[in-house]
């Protein structure tokens, strides 16, 4: 097999292994949490017998190793288990709680990414092209300030500007089942704007830095001496050789959009997966917490894996082996 295929298979195997390790870590760390769901639900007055019976009903009396394999076995078959929150008579599957929220989060993340990534890369390329110009300094200063500000502050400023002073959008991004796609778009406009401001800054700065790093290479000077136009030099000669770091920061930003947006969800009262996890932690609803943690971990691993593979695949030394 060629070098590229082998490297990609290796990365896939490594990614799979990481997910397994993470599942063990997630499971065991929740195991060591102080307190107990059964006693916390049943209250102080519950007799030891009731607590024991309840634990048995939830399967908490089984040894941890057995429960881990039971849980992970279910996950592999797409069964995330039942939530602790619903009672025994009406068991609520975790997937029923988590999945709609996950779709909401992915919707928000998808819209944001579709806008932010092209804008960020384009701004980065332009800033590299006109480096040290007034445009470059303006872009740098504004991105630096959005990085420096806490995201909730950005969110409130966006609300103040576009929902209060000029009421173009709703301040709350509540979704309801019957909404059309355009209505949904309108609902998420402000969180999308806020998140874009946050992630564009990182991606744009990395793009600019990666391109400028490559511009010092002799082959860029050669392109200049061949009479190539500056924009062509940036896009055709520098960009393909700077893709690695750019793809990495994009993957990182995408992961953040799925995993790290709980603050934004709270500010805009958006029913995403971050809020679900926070609620589940508060209620000690272990199966939901586990499911969320596993989804988050898998998101990170898969996105980084994709970034790695793209970075490897765009390296001509691997793509066109000797």
């Amino acid at each position: 097999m060629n070098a590229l295929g082998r490297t990609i298979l290796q990365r896939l195997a490594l990614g799979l292994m990481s997910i397994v390790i993470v599942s063990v870590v997630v499971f065991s760390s929740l195991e060591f949490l102080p307190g107990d769901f059964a006693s916390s639900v049943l209250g102080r007055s519950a007799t030891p017998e009731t607590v024991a019976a309840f634990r048995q009903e939830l399967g908490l009396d089984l040894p941890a190793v057995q429960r881990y394999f039971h849980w992970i076995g279910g996950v592999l078959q797409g069964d995330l288990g039942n939530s602790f929150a619903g009672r025994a008579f009406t068991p609520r599957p975790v997937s029923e709680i988590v999945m709609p929220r996950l779709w909401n989060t992915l919707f928000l993340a998808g819209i944001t990414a579709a806008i932010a990534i092209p804008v960020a890369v384009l701004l980065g390329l332009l800033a590299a092209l006109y480096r040290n110009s007034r445009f470059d300094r303006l872009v740098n200063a504004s991105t630096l300030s959005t990085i420096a500000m806490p995201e909730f502050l950005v969110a409130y400023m966006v609300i103040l500007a576009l929902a209060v002073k000029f009421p173009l959008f709703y301040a709350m991004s509540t979704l309801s089942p019957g909404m059309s796609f355009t209505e949904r778009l309108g609902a998420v406009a402000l969180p999308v704007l806020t998140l874009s401001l946050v992630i564009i800054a990182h991606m744009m700065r990395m793009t600019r830095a990666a391109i400028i790093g490559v511009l010092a290479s002799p082959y860029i000077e050669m392109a200049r001496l061949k009479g190539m136009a500056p924009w062509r030099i940036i896009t055709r000669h520098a960009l393909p050789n700077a893709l690695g770091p750019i793809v990495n920061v994009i993957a990182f930003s995408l992961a953040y959009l799925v995993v790290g947006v709980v603050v934004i969800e709270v500010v805009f009262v958006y029913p995403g997966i971050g809020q679900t996890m926070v609620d589940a932690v508060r209620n000690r609803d272990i199966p939901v917490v586990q499911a969320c943690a596993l989804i988050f971990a898998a998101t990170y691993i898969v996105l980084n894996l994709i970034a790695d593979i793209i970075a490897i695949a765009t390296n001509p030394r691997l793509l066109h082996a000797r």
Partner: protein
Amino acid sequence: MQTDNAHLLDIRDLRVEGESDGQWSTLVDGVSLTLRRGEVLGLVGESGAGKSTLGLAALGYVRPGCRITGGQVIFDGRDLLSLPEDQRRPLRGHRISYVAQSAAASFNPAHSLMNQTIETAVQRHLMPATEARNAATQQFRRLSLPHPDSIGKRYPHQVSGGQLQRIMTAMAMHCGPDLIVFDEPTTALDVTTQVEVLASIREAVEARGTAAIYITHDLAVVAQMAHRIMVLRHGKLVEEGETQAMLDAPQQDYTRSLWAVREVQKTTLQAAEKPLLTIQGLNFSYGKAGPKALEGIDLTVPRGRTLAVVGESGSGKSTLGRVIAGLNVADSGQVTFDGQVLPRRIGQRDKDLMRRIQLVHQSADTALNPRHTVRELIARPLETFHRLRGSERERRVQELLEMIELGPRYADRLPSELSGGQKQRVNIARGLAAGPDLMICDEVTSALDQLVQEGILRMLLNLQAELQISYFFITHDISTVRAIADGIVVMHHGRIVEAGPRQDVLSPPHHPYTELLLGSAPQMRTDWLTDLLASRAASASAP
């Protein structure tokens, strides 16, 4: 605008400054030159003489961090310096093109060689892509590249350095330019490859009547290529003249000193009585199944003498040096050092053995920690091997700095504040500080200008006379061998093809490979390349 056909390029009183650490210093100081159509001008000088800056100025280009402060660059009647950028750019790659020193670094790793070769023609709409590709293929063929029809599909890392250099020449010639600037196009190549590339370039330039500026620090090379030679130093013109006249009767002392360098030769010493290092039946391969990098090596390094190991890159000479140093572990064979068998791995050797065998790397730039001062660099082995501290250590540092002819004021400098030659001296001083019996010098002078090389070779000879060190001297340069060797070992494909005292190896009869190496080293006469090619063609057609 109709112009005087005689002068294609006319550079008048050009001044270029470069910035470093906020200080502007002069790189080119009022140089003028003229070039007729079809004429080849050689620009000669050591590094820092301003050759490349001047060559790039012929394209109306200055590197970032440099500025032109005066003068004119009149190409075909138009002053490039006063043209707006969008009128200057179309000339580059089309009417004036450039061949860079390191083709490996100057080709974009992300695009195929063909796409890079035809880029200017296609982007400028000079010809349709198919026609451009055909023209490029023809150009590849003319430059005697292997597989001219398919080599363009390859990527830069897939072809050898010598081939890349020829493809870059093909790229430069693709649009049929009036002028090509060759910036040290063969400096990074082996002597044997250099001959082929030089022949290809000369033929291609002559066939089309293209004018060229040929920049090099190697006089023997420029003598083959140029009609006229200009010698530069510190950004100023030293001397200019027809090639033959410049070789026969240089007027300036500086030019004469450049010419004289190649005449350094070590006085023949008596054969030493006792061997310091003996290698018997040594084999080495990278990895278990890998091809043999070294096969059946037998050699002896006498005490206080120099054994030069010669061969082109890939011949295994550096690998052999690393095996002796214990960095590469031999598969089989025995290395005896001062009467005791050397453990194969460096980890199995005791501290005293490590001290007695020192390795000096080719590139001082990468071998010296850029954040350590010269004092720290030299003092480290003094502490490790001799447990010197405080004033004793400082005294020894000063002594070593005297030995490498730098003096105490350099102790506080960082490598970045030293010239290439000074860095290499510090690199050598670090090896000396350990107090070795054997120094493995891996191409220590190869990256340096001839004048600087000479200084370092003289220093090494003096140190040897004084300290009785043995050198295991790895090089691909025959003139360096002449200057420093007592004994010579010629390597090819991991084997020793010829060995013996210097006089014996350097005088006929030679092993065919030694003959090839010796013959490929450029000589200071204008018809050397022509004669060599003629004699090779003759022997190739002979039965």
